[in-house]
Each structure stands twice: as C-alpha cells, then as structure tokens.
C-alpha cells in the first residue's frame, strides 16, 4: 500500500530538499588545484565511513555536501598532513584510511575520526575534543555544519530510518519493516 522505491527512500531529490530546508548551503566552487584533492577526499571518506563514494557524492549531486565537509576538514591544521597520506596512496583509499586511523600522530588520527563523524552526523567534532583524555562523559560537537548537513547525515540511513524532522516517506510507513540495509547503504567495496 505504501509506495516505497529506493529513490524515494534514499531521497536525493534536490528540489524537495531545497524547498523543505529553505537555505541550501552550497560551498563556493573549489579552486582548480583543489579538484584532485576533493576527489581524493571523497574516496578517503568512503573508505573511512564504509559507505560507497557514489552514495556520498552522487554523479548528479545537487547538494554538493562533499564540498562543505572538504572545506570544513581543510580548516584543520592537520589536514595537509592527512592529505599527504591520501595522495601517496591514490589508488588505495582503504590503505590510506587504515594508515590514518592508526597514525601515531593523534592530530591526523582524530581528524580522520572527525571526518567520519561529519558524514555520519552532519556535525563537526573537533579533533582536539575527540582526543581528550580522560574522555568526556558527553562529547559535544562544535556545531551542526549546516541544515543540509543534518538532513544528509548518514547515521540515520544506517539505522534504516531518516533524520528526525526530515522524513520523505508516506503516512503509515512506520508500520512496515524498512527496506533492507543494503537499500539504504551501499557498503564500500561491497
């Protein structure tokens, strides 16, 4: 009775989103010499998050959330060091991700974690806060990166759900089982 299609569930209909959110925040176009880094950043993000790069940054990508996270990550002092690892492994983002997540330099490791959390939660958790010891009982983000970042956050899709306050489904959908996890999240390399 309920019209589920994958396109509806995954919901990347830009027009709907723009009208629902009001102010879609598009980052300014990346400079030419950033383009290659941006591409590497997306591939690294896929390896870090476990989510296929074409889901993080679809070929037709009206929201361009990758640019927003790229710009956010780039503002971190350890970003250049992190990107050097990625550039050194251009055809092996999974290997680069493994190196970053095990990097002896905490600035690089925790920046990697901040990038994962940006994709999952649409929020910027400062690497310095993630690195605190002992860890705080409540880890608070610096900010929600943008309204669009919140509505594009992947943790909700990993839960086979939708961001609270941002359903694109129809009345009564909650009474049925959701589509399988594979229909929400394409695993990286799966």
């Amino acid at each position: 009775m309920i019209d589920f299609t994958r396109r509806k569930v995954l919901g990347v209909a830009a027009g709907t989103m723009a009208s629902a959110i009001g102010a879609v925040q598009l980052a300014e176009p990346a400079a030419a010499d950033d383009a290659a880094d941006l591409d590497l950043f997306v591939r690294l993000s896929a390896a870090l998050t476990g989510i296929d790069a074409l889901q993080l940054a679809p070929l037709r990508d009206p929201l361009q959330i990758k640019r927003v996270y790229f710009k956010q990550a780039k503002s971190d002092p350890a970003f250049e060091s992190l990107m050097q690892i990625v550039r050194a492994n251009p055809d092996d983002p999974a290997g680069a991700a493994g190196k970053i997540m095990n990097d002896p330099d905490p600035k690089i490791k925790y920046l990697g974690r901040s990038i994962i959390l940006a994709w999952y939660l649409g929020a910027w958790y400062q690497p310095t806060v993630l690195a605190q010891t002992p860890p705080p009982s409540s880890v608070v983000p610096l900010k929600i990166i943008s309204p669009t970042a919140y509505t594009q956050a992947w943790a909700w899709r990993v839960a086979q759900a939708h961001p609270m306050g941002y359903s694109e489904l129809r009345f009564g959908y909650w009474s049925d089982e959701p589509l399988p996890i594979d229909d929400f999240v394409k695993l990286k390399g799966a």
Partner: protein
Amino acid sequence: MRAEKTDEFDALIVGSGVSGVLIAKKLGQANKRVLILEAGQDLPPDINEYMNRFLTATAKVPESPYPPELFHGGKLTDPATVNAGRPTVLSLGAKGGPGDWQDPKQSYLIQDGPLAFGSTYERVNGGAARHWLGTSLRFLPADFEMKSRYGRFTDWPIKYGDLESWYGEAEKEIGVAGDAQEQTNHLGISFSSPYPMPKIPLSRVDKAVDAAMSGLQVGGVGLDELQWRVSSTPAARNSQPYQDRRVCAGNTNCIPICPIQAKYDPSVTLAEALRTGNVQVRYRCAASAVEVDETGRVSGIDYIQFDGDNGPVIRRGRLTAKVYILAGNAIETPRLLLMSKSERTPDGVANRRGHDGVIGKFLMDHPLYLAWALAPRPVWGYRGPLSTAGIEVCRDGEFRRDRGAFRIEIGNEGWNFPIGDPDTTTVDLVNGLNNSQLNKDNKALFGPALVKELNDKLSRQFRLGFLIEQSPDDSNTVSLSATAKDRLGLPRPRISYNLSDYTKRGLAAAKTTATAIFDAMNADQFTSAPPVDDPSSFPWPSGQMTRLKYYGAGHIVGTHRMGSAAAASAVNDMQQSWDHQNLFLVGSGTFPTVGTANPTLTIAALCLRTADHILHRVLN
C-alpha cells in the same frame, strides 16, 4: 494609569496557547469582540525559520526551534536580559555545572527545590503547545473522583459525564486521530461521538512490545491481575487531511516541531479566530497586573509592550473588557495573579484575602520515568511519529490508594530521548568510547565494520516512558522571586517542588514494571542510574544509595485549582474565579488532580465548556 479606549472588547484574553485561542474562536464566532495579549512574538512568515533553528541546534531540546535565543556568547542566555523569558531543560544541570538549575543567570525559573521542576513552556504564538507531542487521551472517570473512590486528595467538581460531550467537541476542534472502540474496550470509557479521523497505525516498536504482553507478569505493584495490552494512542496528528493540513509523514519530530504541521498546534485555531473578524491579537505585550475595582470585579489589565526579545519598552497601558480570561499556563498565570497586589488584593488577585488562598499552590507534573533497552531483534526506531501507542490499562486500580498511577508511552525514537542518539553511539563507535554502554570493548571502528555495528545497535534500540500521577501537595508552589527579574522588571517565577512518597512509590512501581516488560521481551535493559548530584533524582528506597531519576513531562498543572467551594479552590467548574465574577483562570492550572493522561485534550474540553458558559451565562 489611564485605560485605553477598548470598551468595545467583550473579552480580554492573556495568552495565545491552546486554552486562549479555543475560547477566542468560540467567542469570535458568536460575534463577540476579543483581544488576545501574547507576551511572545508572532510566527515567522515561513516555518523554515524555526526549522533551521532546530536543524542547526547542537542540543536539540523542546525549546530549540523557538525564540528567544537560548544561547548568548556560548552560554545560556541570562534571563534577566530577556523581556519575556521561558524555562529550558538545558538549565536542569547539577549545582555548579553548566546549566546549574539554581543559577538565576542560567535558569529563568528560580528553583528553590528540594527537587527540580523539569517541565518547560514557550512564550510565543501558540504557547507551550508549540512543542507538544499531540497525545490526546481522555481522563478516566476515576481521575475525577480520587477522593470518593480511593480516599485520596480531592474530587473534581465535575465528573467524566459532565465533560464527555466536550471531549468530543475538543477532538473535532484540534483534530484527533484515534479508535474510540479500542479506548472503550481497553479502558471502559464511553464515547458519544467517534474520533474525527481513524487511528494512527502502530509502529514496529509498538508491535514488538505488544507481542510480549500476553506473557507479562508484574508483581508487587498492584498490577498482578491485569490483562496487559498495547493501545494505539489518540493523537492530534492527521491520519488524513484535516483542517487544510497535511497527513503525518512520520518525521519523528513532533517534539519540538512538526515540519509539515500535520500535528495540531494552536496557531491553527488562532487563524480561524482571526478570520471571524472579531478577534485581534497583540504580540510582545506582557500582562503585568490585574486590576480589581471596589465591587470586586476585574476592571482592567496592565500591560507592557516591548520591541524584540531584548529591546526597549514601547508602551505601558491598561486594557479593559467585560470579561477577563487568563490563559497563560500554570506558572505564568499564578505569576500574574501574584504580581497583582493592591490594597484590595493584598495577597494577589483571586487569592482570597483573609482565607487560605490557593494561587500558586499544588503545582504538579507527570514526573516521567524513562527506561531503555535493546530488543533481541531489530524494531527499527527513529521512524514514525515520536509515539504511536502506549500501555493504558495500568492507569487505574485500587493501588491508587497507595501509589501514583502511570501510563506507559512507547517511544519510536530509539534512544534519542535517553542518551541523545544516534549521536552518542556513533561517537562512541568512531572514537572508542562507551558513553552509550553499547561499546564495552571501546572499539574505534571505521569502514564497513562501522556501518554493520551501528546498524545492529540503532535498529534494536527502544524506550518506554512512564508518566506518573503526582499527588497534589500544597507545598509545591509557584511564587514570586524577591530578587530575580526579567528585562521588563517583573519578578520571575519561583518554584518550590518535591515529590511525595506517594509519587515516589509510583516511580518505583514504574521501574519494576519496565524491568518486567523488558524481561518478557528478552530485551537487554540499559537504563542507567542518575549521578548523585542530578537535581531531578532522589534516593529510593528512602535512605538507600540507589537513586531514581525523573524527567518533566511538560505538563504544568494545578496552581489555580477548581473546586466545589470557594474555601479550598480558586475557580469553580467553569474555571470562573470565586472572588471576581468576570475573571476566568483557564488551562491545566485548574486541574485539582493530574491523573495520568496528557493534559491538553482535557484543557481543550474544559475551555470549550467555559467558552459556552461565557457566551450563554456571562456575556448574553
């Protein structure tokens, strides 16, 4: 102060919440001239302004979408700098920490304790019902008769039968989706008219809880013989198009804001009231005093009009009408009455000079016990309205002689309420922490392993909320702070609040029941004990080290109670002041006892009844 020429108004209403707007609409439709004073501001032209405030709020609390700003310079806004302030759950923190519940620079309410009052409200078009859930249960017949049935507290001056038809009217006015036959079958209450919309379907979480009901046994709390069952919750949430509003799309965000207005809020009724052409509303006008003349009738209301949440005063004036209706809420209405001290009313208006005034006394809530667990298999929370069903069959019984009753609300939002998920668990799994208790090995995951682990945990989360019937205690009070003021110079509300042993026993019974339900479901419980410095917690059993935590339910009740005689109440069953015949105090402040049903539907029913009384007995 000279009164403005407003003699043309039949009624002056303070507050544009659900009480005020329902009465305004009914009077306006009968060609009575009505003026509403609202201390807060009008809605923005586009709901996206509120949505964007919500979306970008790092702490998504009931108050997040709405003005005035909760934060200033990285700290909670000092309420002394705000013209019309409001409480927030962010200022329920431990003493000395962020959001210190007793720091007047962080908390609008001046909380004397010994325990914290946890419920909040809004001062904006629509009032507290801007961030309500939509639950629209009727009170049970026994809820009106606690004294005669169980020897506890007091009876209402009306019974269920007096209100039954008004419940039906209220369900149409606010648009309730529900199943009357199911309510009758499960609770034994009568309905003379069906709900205007069919019920909201149950969620997967509801069905998982329901599947365990047949095998459930709860011992020792007076529920041994109960036939347990899950009931769909009647809610003011569209299951089909209604009042030109859309059908619910399951945004899982009723609190704090429905992005598509599928949930009723008072601006719906206010718009209808304004369309009559007989109703006006003035925003950013805070009522500051109620004046009484030598005959004992209210003769005017003083107000302060201001510019912006933190801007200057524009005007001070006095407004007059034939009838005055205070429809603030059970904190702001007694505050206004107590601010209205004069030679004629030395203890405040409607507070019975020379008698035991009750204004501000008997403050109640539904202290909420929260319990959370992982189901053995996915139940897929974070989907659907925040709650679609509950357990209602435990709301009444002989046990009410001994302890507070409760209803059980089944949550559809995973562990969002208990621990702020999905954020907390996601951060745990990425950063090797265990604040969620779901990452005991402190794994720091990435890649596909992260997706799999997070999916497994989030899809099995669910929670239960127990709304406890609180005893009416005259020591739980709203009074005026002697020192703390808002930016208009008006004294801020001072709250003295505690839970009686009757209420605490209700919370303890909730804990027992939660554990039994989780056991019957083979679910792993993760409910955590509160820290010792949590002001919303207490040791239980008394004198032991173990503690129980409660939350505010957002149900502010009881501070200008109704009664059958003037001696022990502020208003009669028409919510009309005993002391001042042209003054009505409306809303959940008039409830003598709180029952277990969320109060809004009963507020609406009482106010429709009061509007009818005003039209036919007072203004005719």
